């Protein structure tokens, strides 16, 4: 693996930095995870029942259609 970073040179210090980066990344991410499921999504999933009629009537973007290749 090529590793062309401007390394601080000391393996220990680098490991410390890497662990700090990992910690920051997870802190950022987990903060959102902890917010749970906003009502709008709980409702959305509840409304669409499994009978296959998932018509995009709940459609904020206006153009949701997996088969619509004509967007853009």
């Amino acid at each position, binding site marked *: *693996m*090529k*590793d*062309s*970073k*401007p*390394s*601080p*040179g000391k393996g220990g*210090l*680098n490991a*410390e*930095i*890497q662990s*700090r*980066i*990992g910690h*920051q*990344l*997870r*802190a*950022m*991410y*987990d*903060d*959102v*995870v*902890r*917010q*749970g*499921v*906003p009502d*709008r*999504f*709980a409702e*959305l*999933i*509840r409304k*669409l*029942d*499994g009978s*296959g009629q*998932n018509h*995009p009537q*709940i*459609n*904020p*973007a206006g153009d*949701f259609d*997996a088969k619509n290749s004509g967007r*853009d």
Partner: protein
Amino acid sequence: MPLTDSLREDILASVPNLRAFAISLSGNGDRADDLVQETLLRALANIDSFQPGSNLPAWLFTILRNLFRSDYRKRRREVEDSDGSYAKTLKSQPNQNAHLEFEEFRAALDKLPQDQREALILVGASGFSYEDAAKICGCAVGTIKSRVNRARSKLSALLYVEGADDFGPDDTVRAVIGSSR
């Protein structure tokens, strides 16, 4: 497979992670929630193509990631999140120092190439294996590994090396590393 109650529960249970992924990718809370909503609609509309017993989170993440990328190409980040509107979506407002540190981290993350950013998030935060991350991104496992490594190196350079040329153990360095020594 048909949308059973238990599948619906599983999808619901994936929402917090989908949101975290979307926010980490896009850096914008409102846009992230739109992405999640579109992901859910698309997943539910295509639920028949989900293989029972396969990895539901990975399937949903794949949809979200592809939506984000097609959206990204279209919009090219016309709305930059430069003033920390991401932080406003956080429930627990961090204190001033932690807030600054957070903004710095967020800014550095946004500087990564998209391939590297998504690989790092999937492996380092979402907790996917390299194998699953490779499937989500549609590339080889080795590619994911090298993207994650490059992402870590770049973040490390951006956050901890840039502007501290000889990286001596001075106060600045100690402060940013948060050393307890």
